């Protein structure tokens, strides 16, 4: 107490500020701690542990793990099923980008041009987003059913018997049948995303373009599309990363079959770890999945970032 009496007012400000600084530092640490605790235990540590397990052979029950070195990774490199899964994942990536984004955009433009008249359409279009992926998978499993499903029944009804298929059990088309469902599920999502940015474009822009003699097509390609750049990149990134992580729908509809025709990295990992109890090899597949996602994300992210800066500069 005596000391403070002799303090100059300047010194008092400094101690005051230091107290404040500490208070902010303490708050920062305290407030970040829970988030990092959860992320550390349930995200970061498991990633590291997966990599560690990938060097062992283990059935998940025995107390002892057998150290294998890089054997699991060598096995993975030669594993035809794994590479098939990687290929399937990338087929989903490309078809998702090619089908979902254009149709989503077209529907958004359509709803945007229709205004209030189309609000009923909007309500229905949005419905698929409310179902869980499991429910969608099971629903479509029965829609595709060759005997009781509605697709074959409808085809027969309109005289297109030749087109009826065993949609999910024919290895040649099973993957595409599943991709069609993925599109059904996600197109509404991209539609709403694009609709949000379309409604942000001021109406004066359209008038100005028309006054300057632009046709509707020209207006779309040279004004609307460039303005949607940001949301198109967002949508593409979401679709890309999401497609690589895909699991639920495929698991429910085909479990990766018939004969690995729809196998994905995630379904293969699940089978290895939890059906045949090869925890070590399952962890290897999981780690490989992580590497593929990380590398893809980085390859897409950095060039985009640079381009963004070029435009901003």
């Amino acid at each position, binding site marked *: 107490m005596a000391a403070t009496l002799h303090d100059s007012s300047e010194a008092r400000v400094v101690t005051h500020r230091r107290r404040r600084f500490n208070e902010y530092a303490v708050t920062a640490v305290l407030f970040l701690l829970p988030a990092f605790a959860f992320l550390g235990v*349930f*995200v970061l540590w498991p990633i590291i542990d997966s990599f560690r397990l990938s060097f062992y052979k283990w059935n998940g029950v025995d107390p002892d793990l057998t150290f294998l070195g890089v054997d699991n990774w060598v096995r993975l490199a030669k594993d035809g099923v794994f590479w098939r899964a990687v290929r399937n994942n990338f087929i989903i990536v490309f078809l998702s980008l090619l089908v979902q984004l254009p149709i989503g955009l077209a529907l958004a433009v359509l709803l945007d041009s229709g205004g209030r008249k189309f609000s009923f359409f909007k309500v*229905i279009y949005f419905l698929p*987003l409310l*179902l869980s992926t499991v429910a969608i998978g099971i629903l479509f499993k029965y829609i595709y059913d060759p005997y009781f499903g*509605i697709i074959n029944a409808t085809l027969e009804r309109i005289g297109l018997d030749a087109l009826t298929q065993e949609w999910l059990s024919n290895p040649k088309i099973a993957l595409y049948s599943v991709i069609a469902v993925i599109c059904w599920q996600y197109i509404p999502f991209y539609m709403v995303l694009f609709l949000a940015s379309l409604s942000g474009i001021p109406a004066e822009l359209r008038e100005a373009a028309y006054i300057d003699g632009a046709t509707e097509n020209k207006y779309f390609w040279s004004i609307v599309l460039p303005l949607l750049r940001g949301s198109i990149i967002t949508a593409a990134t979401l679709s890309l990363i999401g497609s690589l992580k895909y699991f639920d729908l495929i698991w429910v509809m085909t479990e990766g079959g018939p004969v690995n025709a729809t196998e994905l990295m995630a379904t293969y990992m699940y089978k290895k770890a939890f059906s045949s109890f090869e*925890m070590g090899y399952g962890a290897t597949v999981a780690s490989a999945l992580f590497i593929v996602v990380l590398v893809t994300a980085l390859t897409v992210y950095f060039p985009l970032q640079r381009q963004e800066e070029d435009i901003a500069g």
Partner: protein
Amino acid sequence: MKTKTSAKTIVILLLALLWLLVAFVPFWFMVLTSFKQSMELMTRPVWAFPDNPILTNFMNVINNRFFRFLTNSSIVVSVSIFLVVIISSMAAYVFARIRFRLNQPLFALIIAGLIVPIHVTLIPIYLLTTRVGIYDSLYALIGPYVAFSLPVSIFILTQFMRQIPYELEDAARIDGCGPMGSFFRIVLPLSRSGLVTIAIFNAVSLWNEFVFAFVLTSSPSTRTLPLAIWDFQGQYASDIPQIMAVLLLSALPLIIAYVIFQEQLVKGIMAGAIKG
């Protein structure tokens, strides 16, 4: 010119109707079939109206512990959301409002969590859960649910909190309000709509979560709704109307929420996509 526009309008309308059909027909099939008897589906055309609509399929589902699954889902989702909202608002406050050297790197680290595939964490989390002794209980789900909801929630809330005027906090500071005080008295109350958004977004995605529930629980008493559907499907695989009744009943809570809170729900679901 006139004919051209009207032709175009017709094409647009046709496309709109086509997609309406594509989006709606599966739902129609689900509703129609859930009122049929299982024999009826085999003997009559799939598109026919049920001969005499029955409710037995729904009663079966309800008597098969449907409310147990509904309660399980509600408990897990509400506890997880509660934790996510608290933890992410605290972290977002630090990232949006306190300047320190590690702010940017730590924020980037959290955002990197957005791309982590659940499957790379599955084996270690499963092993951890069995070792701790909470395997096959609702507690097992809360940790991973909270952790995987945090990156996107912190991201959205940080953006949100950055927009609150700094003058408010400066004024409070002059009046002797420290960082904790300004979090609870200024930033948190002003972030209410952001908190609602992340609560809705996470509620919808956790309500439908499958993988963790699939791996970390096994007995019917701990199953959440998506898993209950999955188990039902295994049990009644050949009774299609029965399955459709489960699907319909399990989708009902979200559909009702959608009817009541349409705008807010759509905004919430889309929140995860709003970047940059």
